[in-house]
């Protein structure tokens, strides 16, 4: 009994002693920015449930222990913990929490903060581009962005490259992404009329990457759907440099380099002695190294001068540049002169107007490409060494089976001139109540003139007594768009952004073409002097598109982000019934890094999960594909004739691609490590396919929406800041793997035997697989090639063919490491494509063995008598088989740059702000087992189906460059 009482007393003492420690605490909570009282602020005793909320005057009152800590929290404000320390009045000023949303990025028709993007978007900015000597847009972007596959089909200066994103969504329609410069879709593609079979001029090579500030790559439906019918292949947004309002910057960048055709990659061709041994002849006196005769060390240079300036009302950017690239095959070159002005001016605080214009002139000296008898490079590979370049009398020797390539290089004239003007003007009215109205008008005007002349000193010219060709192409694209945007934030809790717009596009193309023969002599180059007009034509095409689009974005406390987009496109390409296509998309992102349970983990600086789904379309087909048509031009005996050329298809409509994807953005250790990973699944249905028809119908095919294709894959980009301080080291790594599969075609009928490597399109296989005979080797008894009789019927027929290769890569990757140490910077960039097969069509002719062409030295080990065991037969046949399929995987040291930035105090004396000198090497070495000249090859330029085929194609060169970047 006494014990219990004692305990009770002690307990009461204990409790009352506690009570005796609580003190009343009160105070006012205000906002630190404007000192106004803040009601609704939660005041809580740390470690307990006890708390209160400030009243309308911002005051609170609480009884707390004198050693307690008070926690003040309010949405959008920095959390504060204040120990009581016996004080009775504690006033608090709440500070705004700065929500770090990352940099601002341009996305379709508006800008947004990088962290609030819920779709899949990649960015590349100018720093990553500056050391690369290939000054074309696709040339600088190669290997820099995950999911964007840029394959340089050949080394032709100014030549066309294949750009594909996430595998490309179509078989027949264009697979090229939409390229938008400053909001204006640009003209891309080839408009040349003189056929160079495969190596076409690319309109994109006239666009100057020196003026580019950044690329934004829109990859999934949520990001691209706002571009509707052109978006299924992705969108590349280019923003050019604008002036800045703070200070004037003058920049001079210049570089000069040397290019060579990598000697180790040129095939080992027979010399005269070996040729004599092969043929059993004894022709002495000549041993011509034809490849040496036509190649050279080719210079390249780039110079640009730009001024960026402005004040608080106006921004100005002016630049002028010259880029020249000679080709490693003599007499090929590309020269480009361009200038740009970008101006922005605030007429009123709410009203900004501005615009930009760029003008480009380029001259492209070309040679016939791989697919003709008059191409210097294929001929140099094919002419045996026993033929001299010149005869005794100084004329060109034309005895060999192929036209003399030195004559072609020296005597033929083959030039393409372009004038390109690209401009836009805009008006932006920004009301204080959250509405912004933007009206933008742009034009892209492309003029191409091609001039060819083959004089009688060349084999082709001799045939016609001089052949002259003149072609002009005029292409223009006019774009107008009006967009109204509304942005509203409710206490930074509920944030809305809505956008609605109308745009139209008007495209026109006019061409003329004339061909003439019979010139008086080789000094008269123009058709005005020719006696016979062999062909003359003119052509016109108009195309239009009207679109309506809208976007709605909502985020809750910058944590849960929803985006909805929709666009309706009407195009002149489709018949009345199917004129408009509708493209909705939506995405959701969750910024886990804003959640309290993640916020506590200090290592994680950014964590965002993204998912998106949407429909995009593709309009890249012929303009009148739904109509039954007769064409003119089928003339006979000087009379005009017409013939049926197209069967009608009234049901023809858009191709639609359903795109879905998930992604994660992760930043660790204050974004020192950042990882962006995406996985996607795209399915194109209603593929516009040329459904093959029985040839006996009189037509070869009809375009119909009959196919289905899927692309699925992963991409990731990893950027790490490995070392900071005196020695800095950053790494950037991107990786993408895409699997393409054709799901459905009409009645399972494949598209067969396209191109020189026999690419097929068939169900359940990726597009463009190689189909051919299986070569088992050389029969030691007969010296003939032996093929596998797959169906066991005793003879080798077309039924004995199967899939022998796949030109689609397993994965592609790019790795850049950049080091800095006290003013020095060193970077190297590796690029790899892995798992793709190449059909080496060149070997059919130079390793057959065949009768007429020069052969490689491997033919010296051919079968010669019964009993010989070898891999080269006695004589080649022409069957397309696994003998010519090679692994095209490669790892290329794409760029190595060493630079030195001069110290600032040294520069101040000569009034420079920055100066850097550097030396750079491009395509330094390629690790590959491929025996041809370049594993990155396709003779058919940007064909969707004919892929991965080498046929005497011009390889890329090795470039060493020195340069200077100076800033004033």
């Amino acid at each position, binding site marked *: 009994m006494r014990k219990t009482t004692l305990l009770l007393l002690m307990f009461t003492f204990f409790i009352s002693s506690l009570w005796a420690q609580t003190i009343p605490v009160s105070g006012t909570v205000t906002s630190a920015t404007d000192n106004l009282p803040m009601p609704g602020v939660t005041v809580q005793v740390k470690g307990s449930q006890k708390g209160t909320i400030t009243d309308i005057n911002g005051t609170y009152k609480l009884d707390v222990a004198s050693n307690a800590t008070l926690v003040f929290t309010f949405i959008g404000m920095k959390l504060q913990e204040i120990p009581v320390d016996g004080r009775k009045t504690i006033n608090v000023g709440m500070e705004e929490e700065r929500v770090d949303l990352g940099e601002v990025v341009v996305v379709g028709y508006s800008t947004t903060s990088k962290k609030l993007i819920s779709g899949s978007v990649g960015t590349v900015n100018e720093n990553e581009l500056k050391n690369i000597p290939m000054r074309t847009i696709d040339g600088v972007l190669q290997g820099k962005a995950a999911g964007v596959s840029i394959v340089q089909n050949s080394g032709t200066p100014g030549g066309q490259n294949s750009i594909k994103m996430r595998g490309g969504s179509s078989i027949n329609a264009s697979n090229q992404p939409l390229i938008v410069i400053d909001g204006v879709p640009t003209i891309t593609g080839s408009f040349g009329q003189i056929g160079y079979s495969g190596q076409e001029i690319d309109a994109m090579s006239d666009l100057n990457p020196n003026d580019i500030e950044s690329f934004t790559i829109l990859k999934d439906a949520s990001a691209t759907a706002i571009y509707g019918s052109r978006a299924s292949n992705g969108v590349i947004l280019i923003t050019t440099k604008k002036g800045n309002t703070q200070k004037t910057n003058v920049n001079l960048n210049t570089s000069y380099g040397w290019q060579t055709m990598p000697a180790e990659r040129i095939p080992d061709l027979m010399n005269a002695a070996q040729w004599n041994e092969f043929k059993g002849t004894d022709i002495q006196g000549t041993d011509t190294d034809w490849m040496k005769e036509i190649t050279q060390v080719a210079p390249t240079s780039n110079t640009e001068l730009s001024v960026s300036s402005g004040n608080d009302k106006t921004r100005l950017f002016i630049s002028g540049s010259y880029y020249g690239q000679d080709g490693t095959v003599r007499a090929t070159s590309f020269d480009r002169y361009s200038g740009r002005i970008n101006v922005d001016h605030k007429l*009123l605080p*709410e*009203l900004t107007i501005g615009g930009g214009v760029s003008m480009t002139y380029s001259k492209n000296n070309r040679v016939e490409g791989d697919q003709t*008898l008059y191409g210097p490079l294929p001929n140099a590979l094919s002419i045996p060494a026993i033929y001299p370049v010149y005869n005794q009398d100084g004329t060109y020797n*034309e005895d060999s089976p192929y036209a003399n390539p030195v004559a072609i290089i020296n005597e033929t004239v083959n030039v393409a001139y372009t004038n390109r003007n690209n401009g836009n003007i805009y*008006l932006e*009215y920004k009301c204080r109540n959250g509405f912004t109205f933007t*009206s933008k008008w742009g034009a892209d005007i492309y003029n191409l003139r091609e001039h060819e002349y083959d004089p009688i000193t060349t084999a082709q010219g*001799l*045939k*016609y007594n001089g052949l002259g060709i003149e072609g002009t192409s005029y292409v223009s694209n006019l774009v*107008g768009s*009006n967009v109204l945007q509304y942005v509203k934030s409710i206490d930074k809790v509920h944030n809305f952004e809505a956008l609605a717009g109308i745009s*139209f596009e008007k495209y026109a193309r006019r061409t003329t073409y004339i061909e003439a023969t019979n010139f008086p002599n080789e000094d008269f180059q123009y058709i005005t002097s020719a006696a*016979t*007009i*062999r*062909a003359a034509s003119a052509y*016109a*095409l*108009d*195309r239009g*598109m*009207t679109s309506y689009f809208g976007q709605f974005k909502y985020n809750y406390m910058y944590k849960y982000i929803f985006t909805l987009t929709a666009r309706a496109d009407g195009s*002149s390409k489709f018949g009345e019934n199917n004129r408009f296509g509708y493209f909705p998309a939506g995405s959701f992102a969750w910024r886990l890094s804003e959640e309290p349970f993640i916020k506590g983990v200090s290592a994680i600086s950014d964590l965002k999960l993204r998912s998106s789904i949407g429909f995009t379309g593709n309009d890249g087909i012929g*303009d*009148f594909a739904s109509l039954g*048509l*007769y064409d*003119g031009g*089928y*003339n*006979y*005996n*000087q*009379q*005009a*004739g*017409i*013939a*049926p*050329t197209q*069967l*009608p298809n009234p049901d023809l409509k858009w191709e639609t691609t359903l795109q879905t994807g998930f992604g994660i953005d992760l930043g660790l250790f204050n974004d020192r490590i950042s990882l962006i990973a995406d996985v996607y699944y795209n399915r194109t249905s209603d593929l516009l396919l040329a459904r093959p*028809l*029985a*040839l*006996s*119908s*009189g*037509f*070869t095919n009809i375009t119909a929406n009959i196919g289905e294709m899927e692309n699925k894959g992963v991409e990731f980009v990893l950027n790490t800041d490995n070392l900071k301080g005196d020695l800095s080291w950053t790494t950037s790594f991107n990786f993408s793997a895409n699997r393409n599969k054709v799901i459905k075609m009409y009645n399972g*009928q494949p598209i*067969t*035997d396209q191109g020189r490597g026999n690419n097929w399109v068939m169900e359940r296989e990726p597009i463009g697989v190689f189909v051919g005979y299986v070569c088992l080797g050389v029969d030691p008894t007969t010296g003939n090639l032996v093929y596998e009789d797959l169906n066991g019927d005793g*003879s080798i*027929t*077309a039924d004995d063919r199967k899939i022998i290769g796949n030109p689609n890569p397993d994965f592609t990757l790019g790795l850049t490491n950049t080091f800095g140490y006290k003013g020095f910077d060193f970077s190297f960039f590796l690029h790899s494509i892995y798992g793709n097969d190449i059909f080496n069509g060149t070997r059919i002719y130079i390793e057959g063995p065949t009768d*007429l062409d020069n052969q490689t030295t491997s033919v010296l080990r051919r079968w010669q008598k019964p009993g010989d065991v070898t891999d080269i037969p006695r004589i080649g046949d*022409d069957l397309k088989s696994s003998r010519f399929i090679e692994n095209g995987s490669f790892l290329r040291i794409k760029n190595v740059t060493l630079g030195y930035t001069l110290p600032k105090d040294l520069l101040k004396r000569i009034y420079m702000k920055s100066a850097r000198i550097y030396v750079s090497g491009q395509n330094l070495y390629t690790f590959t087992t491929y025996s041809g000249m370049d594993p990155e090859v396709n003779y058919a330029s940007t064909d969707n189906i004919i892929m991965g085929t080498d046929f005497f194609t011009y390889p890329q060169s090795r470039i060493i460059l020195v340069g200077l970047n100076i800033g004033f």
Partner: protein
Amino acid sequence: MKKILYLLTALSLSFISCNKVLDVSPVDSVSADAAIKDKVGVQRALTGSYNALQSVGLYSRNAIAIGDLSADNLTWTGTMLEYGQIENKPIPSENSIIEGMWAASYDGINRVNNILVKLPSIPDLTPEESDAYEGEALFIRALLHYYLSGYFGGVPIRIQPTLDLSNIDIARSTLTQVYDQVITDLTAAKAKLPGDKLDGRANTFSASALLAKVYLAKFQLTGEKAMADLAISEAGRVITEGGYSIVPSFTGLFDPATPSAESIFEIVYDVQNYNRLAQYFYSRDLSGRYEFAPTTGLIQSFEVGDVRLNASVAYDAKARPYGIKYNDISGGADRVYVFRLAEMYLIRAEALAYSDGDITSIQADIDVIRNRAGLENTKAADIPGLKIAVQNECRHEFAFEGHRWSDLVRTKTAASLLGIDEKYTLFPIPLAEMQTNSLMKPNDGY
């Protein structure tokens, strides 16, 4: 005030949205319904049908080259591997040249079928004009079906145009059925076509010439003597009524500038609408491709004194032989004979020889050809000898004119003379057709 002005300008800009941009029409095409609606349309479409004969798969190249290359007159010496495949049997069915021959022929057949189906409804045609156009269209259709049968055997017979996707697949007919359809078309054409000689266009005698050839082919196939008689009478009609004559100078036949009195039907070329036959035959020293060259066998088979040898074959600086029936390297305006009078004599001679006809008549016909070629009369005096004599005259007269293969196949001597398997005397049906035409069956052996 300024503000409002700016705002108004801005807003007004927003209302410019052109739906008019969507209204565009093709500039170089006309809709299929409107194409053949009147006489001019028919004329244009008929011109377009003759143009079909100028395809590379037809008379611009392969009708000429393949006839001799797949037989023993030409050998492949060039760079296009597909020609090599044709020379060395068996030909793979994916060979692009045979596919081109097939596709070009059916393209032409479709063009004329479109005309034939529309002709009855054309308002502004006189009956004579309508008949003449119908005759030309039927002739072209017959020519193309016959051309196909010479290489592929029994082929699908197309007598309706392809207007949409319904019934687009048609099965093969037998060789006899193809001949019968050709005969039907030609008999109608013969009656409807006028006798005027029009440059590069068919007339009633062109129809008779082709009829003679088809009757002969059917006779050789089935053995029906009635067919031989019809061949003889059609050939006779052309010889006696046609107003054509055997030109005294053989070389003159192949000079594009000289009009030819012997020409019954030829394809006309000019500088804008040209062929490249000269380039394909000519030696490389003379700016040609030298894709095919005369065989030693052909050259050695000529008799001494035959002017046709030097008119057909020449030698370049390296003593390599090349064909010289087509010489316009720069302009490409060489004419291509489809029928010339000499062939009528030889058709008649062959029909008589194989039906045990009168020896003297056969010799007379052969001698017309031989004498023009600077040779004495034939020494063959019995039926077997005359059969060989006719075949040799065909070979020497029509070298590089595309006849040899069908001559050998028709007389059933291809397998033995060329040393190939009997089943390879038919080309394979092109793979593209096999894969798209659900009703197509392949040729034996492929």
